[in-house]
């Protein structure tokens, strides 16, 4: 079975290809094993 999450998250709406530290960033990789409660991604509030 599978779970698909679709969600909005902060992005500084910076030009394509560059990112700001407040962008939401995934902290997992393709194929990573995850468990309930572990962070999938984070962002910083500027």
């Amino acid at each position, binding site marked *: *079975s*599978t*779970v*698909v*999450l*679709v*969600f*909005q*998250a*902060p*992005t*500084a*709406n910076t030009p394509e290809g560059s990112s700001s530290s407040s*962008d*939401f960033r*995934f902290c*997992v*990789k*393709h*194929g*990573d*094993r*995850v*468990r*309930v*409660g*572990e*962070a*999938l*991604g*984070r*962002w*910083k*509030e500027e």
Partner: protein
Amino acid sequence: TSFLNNLRSNHSARASSLGGGGTGSGGGGSGDSKGNAFLLPGATMATILMLGALHARRLYEDKKIEEKRERGIELEFKPDVKASFLGILPLRSISRAWGSLTSVEIPVWMRPYVYKAWSRAFHSNLEEPALPLEEYASLQEFFVRSLKEGCRPIDPDPRCLVSPVDGTVVRFGELKGSRGMIEQVKGHSYSVSALLGNNCLLPMAPEGKESEDEEAIGENNDKSWWTVSLASPKLRESISASPMKGLYYCVIYLKPGDYHRIHSPADWNALVRRHFAGRLFPVNERATRTIRNLYVENERVVLEGVWKEGFMALAAVGATNIGSIELFIEPELRTNKPKKKLFPTEPPEERVYDPEGHGVKLEKGKQVGAFNMG
């Protein structure tokens, strides 16, 4: 065996009536009986050889795929005969039969052996179940087990989204463009609105340039985004389209041995629940490469709502062996029900949670539902 014996006796009776005895006519009867004697072992041997050949071919194909992957070649979408064959099987009925089988109560003394065997086969952790193994009356109960307190600590950082399930990250990324396409596998994508439903609450997508080579599923025309903006205005008010927000997705695959309860990934309010009665293709790495629209075709339950950063949706997609999805916030919901006819475009059964616009409040890490067998 009785059938063959009858066959043999009929045959010899006929032979004797025709020629007045087996031996006189060249012993044909005795030769035939010897041929019949080889019929059963011959058929058995042929079956075993055929199964062996099929298994060897499967191993060879898996080896080739592994070699490609090691060389960094990403596998592409490629339907095959097996996928078409799965399409004609009564998978929902098979799933329900599996559910009935696994719900049979197991004698108390047998339970530890059965669950240990299951755990050994599917690499489940037997240290974590909340109850002693003897307490789980059936394999189904064991499968949907809860865990001991503290087994799944929730990341306290308020600026993070946590995993709602145990599993393997299959896909993740940002949804760009007006269609919001999620890649099932290289060469095949499906749109977010096909997964979540045509009237999902997503904020109005900016007018984007269509990309010709993207295959959109479930969208009759490009106006579906506009219908999104018009659907249930009261609900839509609670989701504002803000240029400072990106739209992201993450696909997590649960193996049979994984803990199968679903938790809340953040503090959010579930406003709408949508239940798609769909197919129950097996969900595995091979199926994602060979079955078109796997996550859009399969039976699934979608929870949609808002969190402090905007839109949030969680889609729980079933599979053949795990055809049922339970919601603890809506215990009466039943999935994988027998249906006379299943129309691929059957609209989902939808429920707006009260109070409208606020819905059900879910805290980060709280148990929301579970997958179950059958």
